[in-house]
């Protein structure tokens, strides 16, 4: 597809960036790739970007994004959600299947994929539903979605748990045919009927129906055993409890092919916040206790949890401007993820920037089987990268975000770290901390 915005093959010389927080160097980007890396680069005609004091990281890859289109364009569109992603330092997102219609056919995943390509801010990789309509009754046409132009590799009923053990077993087995992975939203439905918040000391006082940790842990325990039995890949979405971490640690020690993600908000916030009854803190899985937060941080540091997934879940304001029990579950996350993870993991000394790149880029890309993402910042690699100012401090203002969602639990919070620039296949989607312009088909970055 050609558009009037097609740009000539611009090149960029990034000067003085600390790659993965290491030694300062220069990177030359041209034709959508990193063409050279070294201390003595110069390039006539290239736009020079002063990156003194900035850290260069591979573009972030989100395994868990709700873009809401088709069907809930009042909450988010592929265009607004991917703008938010670019601003947050992402070059790829996985769009969850709980749209309307559900992304359970080749037609819908191809539509979402095409909307993402037209928008041009990041790679949009649709996630296919595991079951028809997320109803948990019958497998969706997983093979057709895998074979479609969207080349789906991650399948999830996220929002709903694939709770039927036999159906889960079949799904795990079936996707082996095309190297797929089932991403499970671990929530035992009977144990969470009407559940409103983490079950514990705070729910007891607030009189809100409890959401027990065991509802998550029992499904994870079952599914790692199923994955072992059938020799399949399993991914656990948004792990939220200390007990889940213990089960995953055990499963990994046994060599089970399980990967796990944690959201930025579960690394920082606790259920104490629910005392305000402000639905901005209502999320699935719920905010847990401080001991859980600590266990999640340690698990992310020691590799028991593999990746960050934002679970970016924008909602229109009326979905949160109400009583707690009436409110929708979910928080925005794309534009705060980097800062929250820096705050919770890097500034606490638990992880360095190379680890940050692993948990936000290379490992999620590998789980999603994205070959052009999560690559090292080396000559010849695709130019998907982000420049971060780790010394910046900013106060979160949901009104100033690119997402349509105003439901950020971090509003008013001062966070470290700012995305200065994002390059998506050589195209600066973000420059000087502001949205620049998307990649146009046939333009600078086509490779």
């Amino acid at each position, binding site marked *: 597809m050609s558009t009037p915005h097609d740009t000539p093959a611009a090149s960029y010389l990034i000067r003085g960036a600390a790659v993965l927080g290491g030694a300062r160097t220069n990177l030359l980007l041209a034709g959508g790739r990193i063409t050279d890396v070294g201390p003595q680069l110069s390039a006539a005609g290239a736009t020079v970007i002063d990156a003194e004091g900035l850290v260069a990281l591979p573009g972030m890859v989100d395994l868990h994004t709700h873009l809401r289109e088709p069907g809930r364009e009042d909450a988010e569109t592929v265009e607004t959600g991917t703008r938010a992603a670019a601003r947050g330092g992402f070059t790829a997102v996985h769009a969850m299947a709980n749209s309307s219609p559900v992304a359970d056919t080749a037609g819908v995943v191809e539509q979402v994929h095409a909307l993402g390509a037209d928008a041009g801010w990041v790679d949009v990789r649709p996630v296919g539903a595991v079951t028809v309509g997320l109803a948990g009754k019958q497998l969706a046409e997983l093979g057709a979605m895998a074979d479609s132009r969207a080349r789906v590799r991650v399948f999830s009923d996220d929002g709903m748990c694939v709770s039927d053990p036999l159906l889960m077993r079949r799904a795990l087995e079936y996707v082996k045919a095309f190297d797929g992975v089932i991403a499970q939203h671990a929530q035992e439905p009977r144990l969470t009927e009407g559940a409103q918040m983490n079950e514990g000391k705070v729910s007891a006082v*607030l009189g809100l129906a409890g959401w027990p940790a065991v509802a998550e842990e029992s499904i994870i325990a079952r599914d790692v055993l199923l994955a072992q039995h059938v020799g399949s890949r399993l991914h656990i979405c948004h792990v939220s409890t200390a007990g889940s971490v213990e089960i995953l640690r055990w499963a990994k020690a046994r060599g089970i092919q399980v990967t796990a993600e944690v959201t930025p908000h579960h690394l920082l916030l606790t259920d104490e916040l629910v005392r305000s009854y402000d639905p901005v803190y209502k999320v699935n899985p719920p905010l847990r206790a401080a001991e859980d937060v600590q266990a999640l941080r340690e698990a992310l540091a020691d590799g028991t949890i593999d990746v960050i997934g934002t679970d970016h879940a924008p909602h229109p304001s009326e979905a949160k401007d109400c009583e707690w*029990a009436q409110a929708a579950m979910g928080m925005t996350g794309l534009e705060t993820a980097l800062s929250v993870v820096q705050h919770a993991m890097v500034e606490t000394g638990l992880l360095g920037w190379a680890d940050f790149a692993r948990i936000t880029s290379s490992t999620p890309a590998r789980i999603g089987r994205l070959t052009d993402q999560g690559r090292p910042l080396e000559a010849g690699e695709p130019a998907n990268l982000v420049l971060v100012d780790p010394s910046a401090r900013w106060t979160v203002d949901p009104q100033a975000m690119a997402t349509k969602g105003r439901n950020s639990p971090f509003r008013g919070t001062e966070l470290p770290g700012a995305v200065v620039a994002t390059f998506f296949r050589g195209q600066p989607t973000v420059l000087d901390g502001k949205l620049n312009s998307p990649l146009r088909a046939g333009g600078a970055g086509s490779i």
Partner: protein
Amino acid sequence: MRHLLATEGLSLENAVRILDTAEEMAAVGEREIKKLPALRGRTVVNLFFEDSTRTRISFEAAAKRLSADVINFAAKGSSVSKGESLKDTAQTLEAMSADAVVIRHWASGAPHRLAESGWINAAVINAGDGTHEHPTQALLDAFTLRRHWSRLAGTPSAGGNLAGMRIAVAGDVLHSRVARSNVWLLQTLGASVTLVAPPTLLPVGVEAWPCEVSYDLDSVLDRGVDAIMMLRVQAERMQASFFPSPREYSRRWGFDDARLARLDELGLADTVILHPGPMNRGLEISSAAADSPRSTVLAQVRNGVSVRMAALYLLLSGNLHPEPAPGHRAATTSETAL
């Protein structure tokens, strides 16, 4: 203190002030002219998202005895059918210049939302929210208990507290806003509280509450108790497997005739029986117990008007000490804890 949302976090000072003011209001209620001009020209709205004729008429009588204008607003909508939003309703009341909103809601926390969202400037009184709190019920219970406890001690009720009083609260604690409000308030007033319930009807996390917990009503009686508060239990809880049958519930946790007789055998002549109403006679309380001289059920109803007069008067005249709302105290990220 601008709102009365919960007894959790209510200071002893403010609790005693409300109870003392309620004593003065009760004295007015015994006069021939029961009306005070205190809130003349002020508007009190009873905003009920959940039916409760008993609570509404109690607040209505309280406001009218203080000469306030009363508007009853029965809002549509429930946990299953979404009606007019709380926000729209609040803004309507704001446009009507409500000075106080008495809110009853099926959703825990709805009064907090109303008080803290900026939708409205009125004082908010929680008249029962979901399974969270029902602070005026606890205040009227405490008022009733304090009168009884002072009478036994031969001291005036005003200025007193419940120090040394042993109180058992028995029944469906899990779903009871009355239990929650009473645990906090009675403990603040110096009583020692024991919750008695089947394990399925106690919340996970109850171990952190300032009270004891027992599964055995008889052993709690045998240990000696000065007051027993029976909570309403809904037979429908049986369907959700909280207990096997109403019969079994009643045998183990109901205040039946045998337990009424047991109080006499134990020589607990001054022990009173409270119930917030409406009662399920034959389930959590027998008719003989409900109608016995130990029962304070009717006094509780009477005292409810005095306590609600006191709450309305003190909030609208700004005569309570400042204290943070419970929701504000811990509203930080986890960082302090980590």
